[in-house]
């Protein structure tokens, strides 16, 4: 604890570690890559609230790091947020704002509003000048009605009836643009969101695996994890694999005796 009183935070980004990183890079150390989510995330407003959708593939360059990750994050009981960009950034920023919203709920005694979450997110992202690589689709229902927003890494936001973000956003947007209309029912909304995510899954390399859906209405939220599994593992060998001696060709053999290097002596046990 830094003393009795909380001093106001000095604010701004601390660039101390950037000097260290530059120095290390000069010495030839390769920076570890970060896990980007590739991703297709979408949201739309229907007659009773909002539906959010996301794929479940997390990529590390050309490799799939997580085949079933969760991209729809909890912000408040009535607000959820899909995240695209760097996985660590989206996780950290949504956790942080979720925590701040909880404290705010205790202080005010009221349900959180979507614009509150929006403002907390955009202020944080703006103050980090785009270095926090989180592109979010934020949706929820509060006393003022259903809301859907997109938040960009530099801190700008849009308010839309339907939105898509991530590398699969164009594929998903094409589905929305052709089929979205106002006043969709719950089933139509879920179907449209699933179709849009599937478009991303099948047409974008950065997105794949399963479809997660979240339906938020006044007073009720349903998180439909793995609502659709369009990419099941079809072949798993039930016999298993065996690696018996002789299957692998031995090219050369070198034996190093360890015994002469280790000296074993009889001695008393360690004293207390």
């Amino acid at each position: 604890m830094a003393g009795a009183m909380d001093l106001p935070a000095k604010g701004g980004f601390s660039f101390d570690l950037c000097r260290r990183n530059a120095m290390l890079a000069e010495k030839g150390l390769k920076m570890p890559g970060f896990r980007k989510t590739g991703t297709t995330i979408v949201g739309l407003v229907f007659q009773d609230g909002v539906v959010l959708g996301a794929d479940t593939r997390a990529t590390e360059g050309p490799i799939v790091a997580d085949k079933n990750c969760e991209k729809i994050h909890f912000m408040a009981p009535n607000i959820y947020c899909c995240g695209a960009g760097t996985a660590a950034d989206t996780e950290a920023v949504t956790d942080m704002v979720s925590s701040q919203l909880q404290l705010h709920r205790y202080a005010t005694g009221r349900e959180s509003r979507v614009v509150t979450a929006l403002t907390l997110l955009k202020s944080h992202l703006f103050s980090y000048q785009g270095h926090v690589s989180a592109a979010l689709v934020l949706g929820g229902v509060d006393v003022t009605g259903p809301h859907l927003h997109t938040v960009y890494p530099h801190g700008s936001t849009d308010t839309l009836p339907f939105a898509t973000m991530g590398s699969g956003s164009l594929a998903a947007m094409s589905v929305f643009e052709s089929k979205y209309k106002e006043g969709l029912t719950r089933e139509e909304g879920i179907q449209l969101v699933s179709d849009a995510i599937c478009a991303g899954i099948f047409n974008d390399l950065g997105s794949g695996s399963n479809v997660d859906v979240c339906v938020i209405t006044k007073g009720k939220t349903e998180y439909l994890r793995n609502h659709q599994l369009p990419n099941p593992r079809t072949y798993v060998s039930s016999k298993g694999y065996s690696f018996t001696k002789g299957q692998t060709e031995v090219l050369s053999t070198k034996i190093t005796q360890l015994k002469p290097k280790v000296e074993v002596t009889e001695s008393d046990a360690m004293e207390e």
Partner: protein
Amino acid sequence: MGDSQYSFSLTTFSPSGKLVQIEHALTAVGSGQTSLGIKAANGVVIATEKKLPSILVDETSVQKIQTLTPNIGVVYSGMGPDFRVLVRKSRKQAQQYYRLYKETIPVTQLVRETAAVMQEFTQSGGVRPFGVSLLIAGYDDNGPQLYQVDPSGSYFSWKASAMGKNVSNAKTFLEKRYTEDMELDDAIHTAILTLKEGYEGQISANNIEIGIIRSDREFKVLSPSEIKDFLEEVE
């Protein structure tokens, strides 16, 4: 804190080895409105008098029992504004614990951290101790728990406790009435009777506050109509 003119602690030892400021803080607590807590076999109840300085005060705006986390609640005796500050700090600490460990804070940990804050204010420059004693009630994996935290920062786990004006009578009453296997509803009745003992005037659903937590682990402050039902059962 070093750049302030008052970087020395205002709470200093007396020749007899006592911290006089803390004694005075306890006096402030002792002149506050009575509050009490009872730990039952399947839950915890905390209650307090809610005597307002005038009939013109809007009693719906006053809430003495506060929620710290969904499964931990707190009540106080002493200075209201000091209580507000502690509630704010405790809530933040609970959130920080969750952010760090992704586990909802256990009751003992929150009590420990709140007590640490209270102790800090007895050993820092330019500040005075908090003029409140807290009764923290919670239900976690270790079952129902009730803790009392004093201005010095010391804390104890209680089966039943009282603080404030009527502390000695209330504690005697509780000692007689308390049983190990009490159910929560019995505990609520006992709490109401204990408050009634020392109450100057007529007790009603609008001038006491009751907070309970059952095995569902949801702390809630009872509404006046719920208190009225319990009052009627007691009469």
